[in-house]
């Protein structure tokens, strides 16, 4: 058997993850052609690379099919109920920074806090006969955040992409989305509320608390953690 390490299969997140491991003496790379999802781990015995979509890594960790995985804190907390009982964060990797925030149209000069958002939502429902729509794909995190903030009379509408466009298209009044620089928001005449973000996320190495360790697996995991210093 071997330890399975799940890494995002594409783009900058994959390359930066490879760099992070490389800087610690563990060479992680894709093998074969550009289109083949196969990889290799050198520098430590008994570790196998599994390339996966970042969005699937939380599920694989919680099912115990991979022992370690790199993905965003946002995806872990959105997708896993009681995430801290299923995975343990071992190291923040220092890239893939993004905040999950709530943004409203810039012209809403009267709305800057959650308190304002709640009052505006109540008036909106009164006026339009339906609950104010907030477009997002992070339903659980946003609902929990708004519940704690005492916001009522809103509804979440699902948006899996181009979320910032929903306000202009009149399919939502506000959005909750991941942002790193805020440029897309500004370009769409949206502003971030003056509140703590719903979540501050970055690429993080997680350990599955449920994956079985057989035979030499335990030693392999120890050796890898020693090398990585986590």
């Amino acid at each position, binding site marked *: 058997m071997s330890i399975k390490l799940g890494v995002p299969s594409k783009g900058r997140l994959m390359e930066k993850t490879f760099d992070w491991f490389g800087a610690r003496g563990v060479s992680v790379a894709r093998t074969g052609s550009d289109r083949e999802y196969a990889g290799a781990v050198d520098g430590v015995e008994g570790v196998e690379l599994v390339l996966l979509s970042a969005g699937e890594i939380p599920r694989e960790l919680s099912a115990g099919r991979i022992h370690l995985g790199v993905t965003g804190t946002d995806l872990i907390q959105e997708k896993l109920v*009681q995430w801290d009982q299923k995975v343990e964060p071992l190291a923040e990797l220092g890239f893939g920074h993004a905040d999950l925030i709530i943004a409203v149209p810039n012209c*809403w000069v009267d709305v800057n806090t959650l*308190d304002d958002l709640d009052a505006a939502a109540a008036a909106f429902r009164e006026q339009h006969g339906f609950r104010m729509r907030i477009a997002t794909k992070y339903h659980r995190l946003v609902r929990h955040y708004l519940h704690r903030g005492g916001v009522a009379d809103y509804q979440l509408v699902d948006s899996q992409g181009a979320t910032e466009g929903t306000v202009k298209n009149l399919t939502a009044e506000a959005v909750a989305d991941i942002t790193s620089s805020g440029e897309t928001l500004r370009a769409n005449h949206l502003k971030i509320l003056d509140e703590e973000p719903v979540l501050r996320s970055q690429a993080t190495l997680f350990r599955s608390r449920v994956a079985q360790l057989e035979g030499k697996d335990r030693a392999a995991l120890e050796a890898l953690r020693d090398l990585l210093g986590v």
Partner: protein
Amino acid sequence: MSLTEINAKAAALKAAFQSAGAEALECDILLSAETFLDLYGEDVRTRAYVSSDPARGEVMLRPDFTVPVVQKHMDEGAEPARYTYSGPVFRRQEEHPERASEYVQVGYEVFDREDPEAADAEVFALFSETLAGYGLRAVTGDIGILTAAVQGLETSERRRAALMRHIWRPRRFRALLDRFSGRAPVPPSRAALLAAKDPFAEAGPFNGMRSEAEIRARVDALKADAKEAPLSKSQVELIESVLKVSETCTFALEQLRDIAVDLPAMSDAVERFARRSEALAARGVDVDKLDFEANYGRTSMEYYDGFVFGLLSTQPGMPAVATGGRYDALTRRLGRGREIPAVGGVVRPDLLFGLETRS
């Protein structure tokens, strides 16, 4: 205990409610989610199972019986009416996976305009008698007293409405009281907006469905509110003293009557409490020993707006064995213009087993 045993216990409870004069009612398990979302907002998704149906849209596994029973009564019921029912309800337990997500409830509901306080007493006495011998502790409360106190506050209608809207969210209610009384500082963004010569100087283009007129209306309202005198210290203390009442019914009534001297708008609600206590005593309930907590039922029972009660096990951490209360406002919202005063309660037979062997 097995489901067979629980169902047998449920059947016995339902039979007891039937012999108290209730008609047995069956309700659908698969309900329209829209009704619940409209009543309770998005939060209900964390407590109930929502699924989708290609033809009906979003559907929900019955999280309680009250809504379908009210709908059934509004559609086809004759007045007055007493109903009993028994069956499973379904609750998501995201925060507490150790709690049951499916359990049986047996209920008794009264729709009667004649004498609300007598109906309150009838329901409480029935549950109290039926569950005697399980060693339960009874708690009562009255959301109507708190709402009457808020309605009587010397402040703007807008502030009263904001407080009313958050009666069932104690933390938010507290935060609003702090802001209206000036105890919490004005957020910098609000101060900047109020000080701005042209609040729209950096607004950019208007976009989205919330119109310029709606935004201007709220800016005007905020300006008007800033000119309003803060809610006085004595008014805040009155609300706080109401919330703090935690006594036997007899002493609670005395305290509330004292507070009502300074907050006369509360008097009618307090006198309803007095009539209920008399009605309870007439049914043999010892009100000198029955607990009353003004704060009871503010978090978990969002649709109750008058009398509330719970029968609790003395074991720590166990959910309430029986709960109930008055929900006139719910019938108003579901009745589309029609309404009927209603009061009722539910008991969880599964929770009775451990207690029975104890006693």
